[in-house]
């Protein structure tokens, strides 16, 4: 519009009119500057997996649509509930320039029609059954502010049958404050926070079936001093961070913190390890509900909604050298584990029983694994859990048995048959620089790997040797089986074959037996495996050849049939069979086949067996092809030809034997 207006002004027109138009433009400027017009939207909207209807206000800013004003969403169509199980999501709240503010209510769950239906005051009522969760509280600048209540209830016949979960936490600017209370159907956790959100004082967990607390976490300004678990039988006290550390940091009360708690508890009391903490279970459940809410919020705005419980833990900064050495130790541990995995090899396990050396080396490997690799692997786990920077690494390596490096090659003694055998690992001059808390662990990882690698190589060699022997044994067995099969086959085939073919078939057997004798009397220093393999292949080919030879009479019959034409003789009124292309048939019958059979009989070797097989197949194929070909010239040439090589060439077969 403005462009049209400007164009109009530069068009030729009376002077007075042009001045008036300039004035109009000047008055329009304030309206052009205020481009943020608020829109109202009512219609379908999808939040996550929920589809429903929404009612909200927004305005356009640059390329974005920013929510502003009230926001309402409801996913459930009440009509659906009449027939089927349905999911519900209902959200109501306020936005200010795309930031959620003010009172928010979120309700979600799933229901199905159940129980009775009734008509009350001209309304059709249907009872619902299912679960519903809801959250209610205020947000300030997108963060929880004030009391937030999260609840999950089981609904039966449209009434609350049971409160499954109930969490009530007070926030200020997103940071939990004052007292909180988290309940589920079994337990109640109460505790409090300092103004900066750090856990403080005593957090106690109560069960519905017992008087008094069942677990107590004792904090001092965010530091978990100790953890007390009160069983009916006994009270266990687990010191976690009893002393105030020199340096500390604040972290979230999450799985990482729990891992750190478990590690510290184990280092303090290795014999009585803490498996589970009900308090933590409750906190995790609470965190899960908050995460569900956060997911819904994240679909409609970029707000982070979380119960950000915080604790204070000791801090031991990891320097670069220490990290590098730690990484090296972890890499070496992984390589060591790969070596150790060979102990699972079933062949090796069998060898262990038969071979003392193997048994000893495998035991050494096992021992190194338990003594060094398992602790190193734990160190790796802690690194992966990201808790090493909150742990005194010297204490930790000492606790894991990775602090004492003697500087000598690794030695392992194994008692076998009332005798102690000692393994000494390879000597190493490896000295990582500079010395850090991780240096001893790295050296142990290095030495362990050297030992495991040297043992692994020996065992691999032994395994390979054994596998080779076994393979040869299998091959030789297969060799004998192949010869026997060939023998049986040749005997039965030659019994039914015409003389010339029978002689060639028997030759395959005789040659195979001769080869086998030469193999068994032969020099063992050569590659017997390769020899045996080659002989098996050869015998299989001979078997194929003998089968092919035995099939020659049938093939001849087939060829004869193909080369026979049916001719009607009107004088006898009979169909007479007449041989066609006689010269080709004669060349096949009287030149080629005798030549092939005699050659096999007089000069069959492993090297040419396959070539005879191929030649027989090719000749048969060509004979079948030539039936329908125009062969007049060929027949003339074949008429007097008695040289098999020339015949082969004439019929278009290259004899691969040559």
């Amino acid at each position, binding site marked *: 519009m403005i462009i049209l207006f400007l164009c109009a002004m530069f068009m030729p027109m009376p002077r007075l009119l042009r001045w008036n138009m300039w004035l109009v433009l000047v008055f329009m400027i304030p309206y052009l500057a205020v481009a943020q017009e608020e829109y109202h939207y009512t219609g379908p909207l999808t939040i996550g997996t929920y589809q429903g209807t929404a009612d909200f206000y927004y305005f356009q800013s640059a390329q974005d649509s920013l929510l502003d004003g009230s926001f309402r969403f409801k996913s459930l169509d009440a009509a659906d509930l009449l027939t089927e199980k349905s999911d519900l999501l209902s959200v109501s709240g306020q936005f200010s320039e795309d930031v959620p503010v003010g009172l928010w209510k979120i309700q979600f769950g799933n229901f199905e029609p159940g129980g009775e239906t009734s008509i009350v005051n001209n309304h059709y009522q249907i009872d619902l059954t299912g679960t519903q969760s809801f959250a209610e509280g205020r947000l300030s600048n997108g963060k929880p502010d004030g009391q937030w209540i999260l609840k999950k209830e089981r609904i039966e016949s449209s009434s609350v049958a049971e409160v499954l979960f109930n969490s009530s936490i007070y926030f200020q600017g997103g940071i939990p404050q004052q007292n909180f209370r988290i309940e589920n159907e079994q337990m109640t956790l109460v505790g409090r926070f300092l103004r900066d959100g750090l856990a403080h004082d005593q957090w106690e967990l109560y069960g519905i079936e017992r008087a008094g607390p069942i677990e107590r976490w004792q904090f001092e300004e965010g530091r978990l001093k100790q953890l007390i678990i009160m069983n009916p039988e006994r009270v266990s006290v687990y010191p976690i961070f009893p002393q105030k550390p020199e340096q500390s940091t604040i972290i979230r009360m999450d799985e990482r913190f729990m891992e750190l708690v478990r590690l510290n508890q184990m280092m303090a009391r290795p014999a009585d390890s803490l498996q589970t903490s009900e308090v933590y279970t409750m906190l995790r459940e609470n965190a899960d509900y908050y995460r569900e809410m956060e997911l819904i919020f994240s679909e409609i705005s970029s707000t982070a909604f979380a119960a950000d419980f915080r604790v204070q833990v000791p801090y031991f900064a990891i320097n670069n050298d220490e990290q590098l050495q730690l990484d090296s130790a972890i890499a070496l541990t992984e390589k060591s584990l790969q070596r150790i995995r060979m102990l699972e090899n079933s062949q090796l396990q069998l060898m262990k029983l038969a071979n003392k050396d193997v048994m000893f080396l495998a035991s050494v490997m096992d021992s190194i694994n338990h003594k060094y690799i398992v602790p190193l692997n734990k160190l790796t786990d802690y690194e992966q859990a990201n808790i090493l920077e909150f742990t005194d690494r010297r204490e930790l390596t000492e606790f894991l048995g990775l602090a004492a490096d003697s500087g000598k090659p690794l030695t392992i003694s194994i008692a076998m048959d009332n005798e102690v055998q000692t393994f000494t690992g390879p000597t190493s001059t490896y000295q990582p620089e500079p010395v850090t808390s991780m240096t001893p662990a790295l050296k142990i990882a290095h030495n362990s790997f050297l030992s495991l690698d040297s043992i692994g190589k020996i065992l691999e060699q032994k395994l390979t040797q054994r596998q080779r022997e076994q393979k040869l044994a299998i091959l030789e067995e297969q060799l004998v089986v192949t010869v026997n099969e060939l023998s049986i086959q040749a005997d039965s085939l030659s019994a039914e074959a015409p003389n010339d073919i029978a002689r060639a078939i028997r030759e395959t057997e005789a040659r195979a037996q001769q080869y086998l004798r030469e193999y068994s009397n032969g020099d063992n220093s050569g590659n017997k495996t390769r020899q045996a393999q080659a002989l098996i292949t050869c015998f299989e080919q001979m078997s194929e050849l003998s089968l092919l030879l035995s099939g020659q009479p049938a093939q001849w019959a087939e060829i004869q049939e193909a080369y026979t*034409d*049916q*001719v*009607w*003789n*009107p*004088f*006898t*009124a*009979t*169909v*007479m*069979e*007449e*041989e066609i292309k006689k010269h080709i048939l004669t060349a096949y019958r009287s030149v080629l086949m005798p030549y092939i059979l005699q050659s096999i009989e007089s000069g069959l070797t492993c090297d040419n067996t396959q070539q005879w097989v191929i030649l027989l197949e090719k000749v048969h194929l060509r004979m079948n092809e030539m039936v*329908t070909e125009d062969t007049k010239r060929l027949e003339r040439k074949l008429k007097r030809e008695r040289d098999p090589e020339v015949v082969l060439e004439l019929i278009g077969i290259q004899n691969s034997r040559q």
Partner: protein
Amino acid sequence: MKYTLFVSVFLLMTCLHNPAHAQERPEESQLEDPVSLLWINTYGNIRLSNRLFWIAQTHFRFQETETTPFAGQIAQIYNRHAISYLFSKSFVASFGGVLRVNFNTSTAETDKNAVPEWRIWHQYKFAMPVSRVMIYHRIRIEHRWSKGFDDDSEYIFRNRWRYMVRVRVPLNKPKLGPQTLYVGPEAELIMQSGKAVVDSPMEDLRLHTSFGYILNPRLTLASGVMYSIGQELEDGAYYKQKWTLRFHVYFSPDLRQVKYKLPAIHMNE
């Protein structure tokens, strides 16, 4: 017309009449002395299409003279042609014509030495395989116009009714095929009718056995001896006898193009 026919028959009887029995009719039938003959026959059966064949036969028939038995003189040259239709492997019908040239073999003086004889013929042949033996029944009907050797001789018309049973027994092979030697006994009765036929309806009874060799499906050679007996036309009381030495060449080329022969297709197989 009646007169003309009568004169013709009379003349024919006079011409062909053996003076030996130009006398009164004997009380008993008379067997004449046998005459010896030599037949050299070619039988062509040329395949034109899947079902059509061209029959082309040429026969050279010789008759004894006083000095030379069998092949003393030429008696007839025979050209028989027809088109055959193969209905099935066991039935074939043929229709065609014959031009036969008859030579005067009598000692009597005649105006002409050779005269043509015309025939229209049709034939129905049935083949019956019985085990390894083939049996054939042949019915051949001929409409024949013949005349004597004199200039004034006129054509007389007769019908011939022929039935032949023939057997072919392979000797060296289980069935008839290439390189098969066979023996072929046959018997044919030839009856005739027509105005000129007064008391001689049995023209010929031929008893013949030949030995043949099938070189290949397209060429067979055979040879045999035939004895025949039949009434003289002019006097049924007299029976002529013949001993014939026969040589046969059977050939059956296939004129179809190769593309119609392959793959080998035959009737109702």
